[in-house]
């Protein structure tokens, strides 16, 4: 689609020219993603038809339930917030060459830890309490993320399986903790959950719009800056693209891999903390059901870039928020959004199909390199 002409080397006009080309490739990327989503929704509509539902009614309800009013928009943003963090966590991992499917478990631990700090620590002013609880959640996620990082570096254990196993372990662990040592023992409560966090730990909403989402945007910007504007980010990306050349470059690969997983886990844990402090107000098992593959879909839909993760999270958040309305008015089970999500992931991953449809050539845009086997690379 775009040829690379040979032009004499001038300074500013040339950089401007190549900025345009890069933006053009940005346009191409955007088109690919949008078409992938549309295709997925089309097939989703077919499935809806097959099961006797009315796709137009269903999608209409979905739209109303996510963007129809300020209140509903608030819910969409609420749903989107932890997704941004999960998406950033997975995208960050991808950039470092790691497939972090454990965002779910890291998020749960972050949520629980934040809740515990939220209700157990008293006498602090709001700003400090909020920050402390957030940091606690982030730290819990970071530590949990360090485990697969260390196992990969020192034992060559592939992070895909380790993180999935840790997800199950995290579910069991948080279940136990919420049903045991941290259980809400106030009179009348039998459900496994922690007590409510104190008001000083809460993250408020302003005019129905959650500040947690604003925080998510800020974190996304920070991650972008970290990856592309700092030496540390250069090291992470280099290790992700070519660990051998990274070693040649003098980068300490083992340290970088572990730090990548730690930061990835931190982001997920932070997401859990924001969810506890901004939405739920306590830790209750089951508040974020589904095996957290959302993060993967969002990361890939957003081309593993922080600024892509934001709109992708809004899309998936909208689907989650709107699915209740869809079930209510159109009688469609909420799981259809899972199916659509899987289809989006399929079309994004198999972009050959979409590119074929649009007759686009493959120029091999900067994608993700993931380790493919089980042994040490």
């Amino acid at each position, binding site marked *: 689609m775009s040829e690379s002409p040979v032009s004499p080397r001038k300074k500013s006009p040339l950089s401007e020219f190549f900025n345009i080309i890069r933006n053009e490739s940005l346009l191409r990327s955007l088109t690919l993603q949008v078409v992938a989503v549309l295709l997925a929704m089309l097939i989703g509509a077919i499935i809806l038809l097959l099961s006797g539902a009315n796709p137009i009614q269903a999608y209409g309800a979905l739209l109303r339930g996510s963007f129809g009013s300020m209140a509903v928009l608030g819910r969409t943003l609420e749903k989107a917030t932890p997704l941004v963090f999960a998406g950033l966590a997975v995208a960050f991992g991808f950039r470092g060459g790691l497939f972090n499917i454990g965002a779910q478990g890291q998020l749960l631990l972050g949520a629980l830890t934040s809740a515990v700090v939220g209700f157990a620590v008293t006498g602090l002013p709001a700003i400090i309490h909020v920050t402390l609880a957030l940091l606690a959640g982030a730290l819990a996620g970071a530590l949990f993320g360090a485990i697969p990082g260390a196992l990969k570096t020192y034992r060559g254990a592939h992070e895909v399986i380790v993180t999935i196993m840790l997800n199950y372990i995290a579910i069991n662990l948080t279940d136990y903790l919420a049903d045991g040592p941290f259980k809400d023992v106030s009179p009348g409560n039998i459900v496994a959950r922690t007590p409510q966090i104190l008001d000083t730990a809460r993250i408020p909403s302003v005019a129905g719009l959650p500040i947690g989402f604003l925080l998510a945007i800020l974190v996304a910007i920070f991650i972008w800056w970290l990856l592309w504007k700092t030496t540390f980010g250069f090291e992470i990306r280099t290790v992700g693209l070519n660990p051998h050349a990274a070693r040649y470059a003098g980068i300490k690969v083992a340290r970088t891999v572990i730090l990548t997983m730690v930061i990835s886990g931190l982001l997920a844990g932070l997401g859990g903390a924001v969810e506890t402090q901004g939405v739920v107000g306590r830790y209750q098992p089951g508040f974020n059901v589904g095996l957290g593959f959302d993060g993967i879909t969002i990361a890939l839909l957003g081309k593993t870039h922080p600024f892509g993760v934001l709109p992708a999270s809004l899309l998936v958040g909208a689907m989650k928020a709107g699915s209740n309305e869809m079930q209510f008015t159109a009688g469609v089970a909420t799981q259809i959004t899972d199916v659509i999500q899987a289809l989006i992931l399929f079309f994004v*991953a198999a972009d050959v199909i979409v590119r074929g449809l649009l007759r686009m050539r493959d120029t091999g845009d900067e994608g993700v390199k993931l380790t*493919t086997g089980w*042994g040490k690379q």
Partner: protein
Amino acid sequence: MELSSSLRLALIKNRNILIVLGVVLLLVIYGSMVNMQITTALLASALRHSTPLILGAMCGLICERSGIVNIGIEGQMLFSAFIGFLANVYTGNLFISVLIALLAGALLGLLMAFMSVTLRTNQIIGGTVINILALGLTGYFYTAGLRTQGKLGPIPLGPLADIPLIGPVLFNNPPITYTTILLVFIVNFVLFRTAWGLRTRAVGEHPRAADTVGINVYKVQYVNTILAGAMAGLAGAFLTLEAVGSFERGMTNGRGFVALAVMIFGKWTPLGAWGAALLFGFTSALQTQLQFMGQIQIPHQFIGMLPYLMTIIVLAGFVGRSRAPAAEGEPYIKE
């Protein structure tokens, strides 16, 4: 003499498992002297737990021996479990339902092959797509309250079933369990002693070498992945049609991933994977039994964590030392 050489190879490669199994054997002998009934129940339970694991592991290793890393085993199992369940609800015929479950698994195997071989999608992502798709589709189409029309029951093999300890455990099993044990030996034979197996392994180690002697790499990968999918389908059928008798959302609960650890632990050989699966199964059964007997006061959530912890330990402990098929995970591009 010649027939046992592949057996010998498997035994040598899996020394570690043999040692642990030896220890287990001693425990069993001790246990049967103390309480025959409980020991028998324990072993039978171990075999039950191991069946989906070994089937999943064989699914995984057939794919990987052909060069395809398949982490979608979980999704294949879940999907086939559901389809088999539905088939039984609407036809009442267990045998046909099992076949339909096999087809469901093979269908997802076809999808995996299509994504990995033709579209050249990253195989880890491809497997993830299958997992999410299975979760979503089964969750969406499942309505509570559906019941199967019975489930597959045990078939005692005559007088063999009466042998103390071994009898009830090995010779009084439902059909899928028997089939699974047979499959272990069949797959082992095909993989290591037939031309198809040789070609498969060549494709997984050095696809270009296979290509240059005229082997159709893509065909080998497609056929193997589809067959492997059917194997996962059998595991799914086992869950709903033999073990439990009904369906529940997400009922595979990570077995498909544990199966990958079993595969690695078993060094990508069916016999090795069988030993590993029995080990995993035995541990699950033992812990449940001890819990039940009140010997150990551990919260049930920690028991639940056990198979996942073991998987991590296996990966951390053993994968560095084992050698996966050299060309797995890379799409083969015929120039």
